[in-house]
């Protein structure tokens, strides 16, 4: 009986892989998912968030200063995809599939700890990035504090509240003192480094836009111009164009602390 069930699961899995491999499933963002696929993804996502947010303790969120801070983060970072009261999402987000949710609805339907978890960690294959790498811990919770307020605001209230909020940008995450290769590996993924470089330990596209970073610890030079030291590597990662004005590697806005973590990981590649 158990063997039969196992066999069935194996067969179904193989059939699924074959369907993926054959290319028959329409991945166009113009066509909808089939109803069963859409439901399965939706339910799986909801349950995964619920399970992971279960142990998170929610701090007090009704502090007015925190709500205002969160409005700044929301207006600068969330509105571009999710829209806001009387504000359309930007063109880049309109055709996304899945469509970025209206956060007024989400804030009503999801618990604060769940909103925090999704904002912090993002969601694979949904276009939702992990804001942990662009926002401080305090600002992540501030954003949640504002989301709690969002469903209660009309267009006029939203504008009035926004007028009272400082222009000061949402804070970057605080750095850790000691560079850590494990955090570095995560940071390399979170700054899209593997979009151009092949990096051992990261599953990503087979790309050769920048040089592959295998055995980086043993390389004598960085980008063919700087001796491979920690200090130079951090300088290169944070401000490549200040070293080589014509390098194709852009300034990705990597924080000093994240660059130290990345360097620690790259230095472990032998």
């Amino acid at each position: 009986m158990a063997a039969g069930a196992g066999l069935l699961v194996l067969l179904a899995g193989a059939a699924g892989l074959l369907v993926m491999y054959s290319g028959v499933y329409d991945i166009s963002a113009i066509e909808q998912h089939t109803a069963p696929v859409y439901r399965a993804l939706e339910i799986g996502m909801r349950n995964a968030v619920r399970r992971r947010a279960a142990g998170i303790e929610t701090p007090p969120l009704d502090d007015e200063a925190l709500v205002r801070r969160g409005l700044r983060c929301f207006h600068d970072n969330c509105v571009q995809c999710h829209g806001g009261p009387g504000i359309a999402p930007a063109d880049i987000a309109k055709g996304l599939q899945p469509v970025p949710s209206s956060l007024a609805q989400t804030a009503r339907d999801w618990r604060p700890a769940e909103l925090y978890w999704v904002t912090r960690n993002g969601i694979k294959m949904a276009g939702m990035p992990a804001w942990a790498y662009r926002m401080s811990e305090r600002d992540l919770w501030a954003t949640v504090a504002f989301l709690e307020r969002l469903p209660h605001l009309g267009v006029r209230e939203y504008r009035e509240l926004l007028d009272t909020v400082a222009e000061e940008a949402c804070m970057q995450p605080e750095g850790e003192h000691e560079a850590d290769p494990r955090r570095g590996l995560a940071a390399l993924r979170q700054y899209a480094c593997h979009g151009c470089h092949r990096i051992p330990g990261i599953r990503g596209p087979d790309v050769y836009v920048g040089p592959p970073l295998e055995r980086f610890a043993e390389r004598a030079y960085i980008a063919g111009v700087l001796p491979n030291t920690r200090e130079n590597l951090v300088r290169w990662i944070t401000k490549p164009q200040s070293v080589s004005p014509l390098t194709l590697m852009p300034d990705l806005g990597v924080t000093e602390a994240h660059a130290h973590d990345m360097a620690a990981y790259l230095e472990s590649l032998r």
Partner: protein
Amino acid sequence: MRRRAPCIRASPAVILGATLYLIACNGEHVPHVTVAGGNADRGRLAVESYGCGACHVIPGVPGARGLTGPPLNSFARHVYIAGELPNEPELLVRWIRDPPSLAPQTAMPNLGVSEATARDIAAYLYELR
């Protein structure tokens, strides 16, 4: 009924194996790049005699394990040269002949490679797919 069991047991494993094999072998299409006047066989020998392998990992060249410059595995797939130039045959020939003339800060020296030899070397590098 029992007699059929082995056949049924084998089929999912075969399907799974075949699927995984197909997925694993799903390579990229790499177009073939030709270099006017370049000969890849001569190029490989030139790479050896100029000692390029002291600084670069170069597949097919004995002892080419240097890590001063970037590894040249799959060079035909590299999008850029030295992080600054589009990887195109004529630029690559110029780069091999005189790197500092294209990127003044580069650690790669001018090795005095002739135009004809640079074309051969470029032809070999584009064989690395």
